[in-house]
């Protein structure tokens, strides 16, 4: 005999999962391929937050969870953590990025030029309702420029540094396995620079936006100017055991530099992530810009934003409140009832009036 049949509990779990999955039906290779093809920005966002660059796995995770992003990213993270680390790629430098889009709000024009690239920034946000009536939406073909923009361009910050407007951070000499890795060691504060940037890179987009927006609205000290926003592809260069360096392929990345007047120099905030996700990197760079000297416990303080933008941790904790808590609740009730009884006893027997 049992309190509540154990098998009953296990059966309930099984059936609840079936119920969830029955909604979505069969998951096929075709469905995964279609998600990957049709929703590259959703796939990018998942890859960035999972810190795992694999479009097929990201599309599979989205298919498997019906597009529930927190679940999809947890799936990817849990998969990622079991994978062996075969190699650490060579550092990627800004000037080596294969750039698709690169804009600066700081200057009208910049060395290398403003490259608008793919964007909906100036689109009118109107639903193509005709699609629902059976008229397929066929995107008009792109007319290539007579002279293509240069694929590789210097950073705007480099120009500013040459002109004495800002001081670039020094090169980080750490290479290979010496690079601190947020997935293999706990973050401690004040955090290592690598840990902060890695945390922002895999932060949850909505969380980073909320805190970055708070900073932009005035809960931060520095108002960001987007020095440079870049969507690009980075070459992953690894070393073959025989000694030759070769490209293992390209990954899409986004990066943002934001600057703000800081005394006689410009302060610089930076963020980058896997996949193309402009909102995230601008918000994250804003947090980075505001972090130095931020008050402990404020939204722009490193410990605060690193912990609270971690999507897998924050979403997991939030939903854990669904778990039974009747023991802790009972314990609180006990203290509360006793305090109440004590209060009632003292109220019944008031001090005699003088």
């Amino acid at each position, binding site marked *: 005999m049992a309190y*509540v049949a154990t098998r009953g509990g296990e059966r309930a779990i099984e059936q609840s999962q079936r119920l969830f999955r029955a909604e979505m039906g069969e998951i096929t290779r075709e469905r995964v391929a279609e998600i990957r093809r049709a929703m590259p920005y959703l796939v990018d966002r998942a890859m960035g937050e999972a810190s795992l660059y694999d479009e097929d796995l990201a599309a599979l995770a989205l298919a498997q969870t019906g597009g529930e992003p927190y679940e999809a990213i947890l799936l990817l993270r849990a998969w990622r953590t079991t994978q062996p680390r075969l190699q650490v790629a060579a550092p990627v430098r800004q000037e080596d990025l294969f750039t698709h889009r690169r804009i600066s709000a700081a200057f009208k024009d910049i060395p290398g030029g403003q490259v608008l690239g793919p964007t909906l920034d100036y689109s009118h946000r109107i639903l193509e309702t005709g699609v629902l009536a059976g008229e397929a939406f066929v995107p008009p073909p792109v007319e290539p420029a007579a002279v293509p923009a240069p694929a590789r361009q210097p950073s705007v910050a480099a120009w500013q540094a040459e002109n004495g407007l800002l001081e670039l951070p020094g090169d980080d000499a750490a290479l290979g396995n010496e690079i601190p890795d947020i997935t293999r060691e706990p973050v401690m504060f004040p955090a290592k620079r690598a840990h902060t940037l890695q945390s922002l890179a895999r932060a949850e987009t909505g969380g980073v936006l909320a805190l970055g927006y708070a900073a932009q609205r005035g809960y931060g000290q520095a108002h960001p100017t987007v020095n440079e926003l870049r969507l690009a592809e980075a070459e992953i260069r690894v070393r073959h055991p025989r000694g030759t360096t070769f490209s293992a392929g390209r990954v899409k990345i986004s990066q943002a530099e934001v600057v703000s007047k800081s005394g006689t120099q410009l302060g610089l905030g930076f963020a980058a992530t896997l996949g193309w996700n402009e909102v995230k990197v601008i918000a994250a760079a804003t947090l980075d810009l505001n972090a130095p000297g931020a008050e402990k416990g404020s939204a722009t303080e490193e410990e605060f934003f690193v912990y609270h933008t971690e999507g897998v941790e924050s979403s997991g904790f939030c939903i854990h409140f669904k778990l039974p808590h009747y023991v802790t609740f009972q314990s609180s009730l006990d203290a509360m009832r006793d305090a109440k009884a004590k209060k009632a006893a003292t109220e019944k027997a008031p001090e005699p009036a003088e």
Partner: protein
Amino acid sequence: MSLATLTRAWEPMSYGFLDGSAKREVRRKMLKAVAVPGCQMPYASREVPMARGWGTGGLQVSCTLLNPKMRVKVIDQGADDSVNAASIRKFLARVSGAPTTTDTLEADLIQSRHRIPEEILREDQVLVLQVPNPEPLRPVQPNMSIARQMHADADYGRMWLQLYEQIVRAGRVMQGASYPSLVNGRFIMTPSPIPRWDVPKLHMAKHLTILSAGREKRLYVVPPYTRVEPLVFDDVPYRVEEHGGLTCTRSGATGFFMNEIPQDDGSSAYEISDSDFGVKSIRKREGEEVAFGATWYTGGEMEGQGR
């Protein structure tokens, strides 16, 4: 000689789910935590195939410790049959090949959320407690980095002040579960959200207790035969929940921590919270021969905890 003869065959998953480097780190941190009782050790805390906050810290410790010869018991709120306990038990058994049990006496490793079983644990048993928030100072200092410094300095004045304020305002200490306790006379720890009823079970216990918070990436240990003293003032004794006099409506047993079950008529019924102990008590009442272990509490009182 070929590569195949030198390496193991590819497997989709490591034994015990975690890879070798993750297990090595957890092992090292556990040893360190045994050496400094009650001190929180930061660890990387890998992602596991369960959501953060659902026992991922306990799970990583169990995955590291388990082997096919160990028998594992998993409880949540005292119950083996709670859905999350069932899910964790299934996962642990699947990745380690360890046999499972619901009987506290049979278990080598017990992973638990919010309870310590009523039967006294032995020297050969390990208790793994899931911890949502490893930082007892959080109510007085939400920044982990500052709290860490306070632990280093044994700067616990604000903890005492907090208890004092509760007594002044409410006439008693209002802390429910997670009662802050001093370990080995040095570090204040949170015993995880176990009820106050269970905290004295950790004091000079024969068994090893490992407390692990996966989301917060900290683990700490109460080694066997270590002092665990709830923070109390000399003139205001520690009080466990008033459950000593309650009787379980299902088994008739008295003197253990109970679940309160609201009744339609506005009253409450009670049942033993430790589900396996409750089942044993029912079987005993029905006349079956049942092996009970000695319990921490007898007649609703724990030795040395008299008021």
